[in-house]
């Protein structure tokens, strides 16, 4: 029985990478539609890191990031989180609103809604890839957004992973529209008992 990330073998990690690939591909398409411009995507990288290194992962523990969290319900339950560096989040909001601004400022209500919507669309397209690969019914909740220190935002997925092991798995994805580059990290956080269901549905284990 697969209890946590440490129990995954190379094949299973390859499968997760493939989900990441397809999911991020879907997300890039959705992003392109939203921004009405071409969006390229690099091959996503599956990363498995130890807790003690978590703080330093996204720049530093104190660098400011935007985290968008959605709950996942249906046949697969858990959470999905999408994390963006603050400057990348601001850039996406500017692109979406069709304007340019160089200064980092507090987000307005409208900009926060825009950012939640971006997270919603990206996480939603990621989940729909997962859903069609597994034939599992997967429904995301409305998103919630927090902007704070990377370490503090990351504590949310890390704690969930902490219940089953000592590592965090995430998928780093790079989007670009030719000039600007945006790096986003997807954390798929299945509830503890869901690893087996997920891997079975993918045909990786019996």
């Amino acid at each position, binding site marked *: 029985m697969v*209890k*946590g990330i440490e129990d995954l073998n190379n094949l299973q990690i390859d499968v997760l990478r493939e989900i990441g690939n397809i999911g991020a591909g879907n997300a890039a398409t959705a992003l392109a539609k939203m921004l009405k411009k071409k969006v390229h995507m690099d091959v996503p990288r599956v990363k498995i890191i130890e*807790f*003690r*290194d*978590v*703080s330093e992962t996204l720049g*530093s*523990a*104190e660098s*400011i990031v935007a*985290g968008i*969290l959605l*709950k996942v319900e249906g046949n697969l339950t858990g*959470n999905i989180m999408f994390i963006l560096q603050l400057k990348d989040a601001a850039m996406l909001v500017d692109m979406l609103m069709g304007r340019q601004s160089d200064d980092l400022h507090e987000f307005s209500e409208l900009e926060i809604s825009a950012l939640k919507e971006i997270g919603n669309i990206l996480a939603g397209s990621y989940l729909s890839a997962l859903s069609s690969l597994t034939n599992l019914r997967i429904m995301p*909740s409305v998103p*919630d957004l*927090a902007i*704070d*220190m*990377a*370490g*503090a*935002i*990351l*504590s*949310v997925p*890390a*704690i*969930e992973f*902490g*219940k*089953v*092991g*000592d590592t965090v798995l995430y998928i780093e994805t790079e989007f670009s529209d030719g000039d600007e580059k945006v790096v986003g990290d997807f954390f798929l956080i299945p509830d503890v008992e869901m690893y087996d269901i997920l891997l079975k549905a993918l045909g990786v284990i019996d």
Partner: protein
Amino acid sequence: MENIIKVGMADLKSSRHPCIITTLGLGSCVGIALYDPEMKIAGLAHVMLPSSLQTKNNSNLAKFADTAIKMLIGDMCRLGANKAYIVAKLAGGAQMFSFNDASEIMRIGLRNVLSAKEFLEQMKIPVIAEDTGGNYGRTIELSSNDGKLIVKTIGHGVKEI
């Protein structure tokens, strides 16, 4: 040159004077700062979960409030601290996201704080100050000189407890 010691997530460190022990970006995790003012010995744990008894994978003692507190006190006493003098300060235990329903993932910060207090009480260590809860992250620095704990936030100021 000050001796700055960094504590990661699910990690703990202790030291004799002089030192500053720090942990960055506490969210729902709790920072447990212990200090013996007589011997000037400081210890800090960054715990993720309330109790080692609620999970099967509990080999990492620094991850849980109960086992981390026990281990940190042991480490400090080996450095010369007297358990009878040790006092505690707590920081962190925030709820970073605010979904309407109070599901387990949302309330973990509060549970971490309550559990830390319970185990400290069992160990007869008084909690003399805390800055816990809220919906924001915290970076903390414990000074071995006087046991002061500096709490830094983004947008919620800096305080000393």
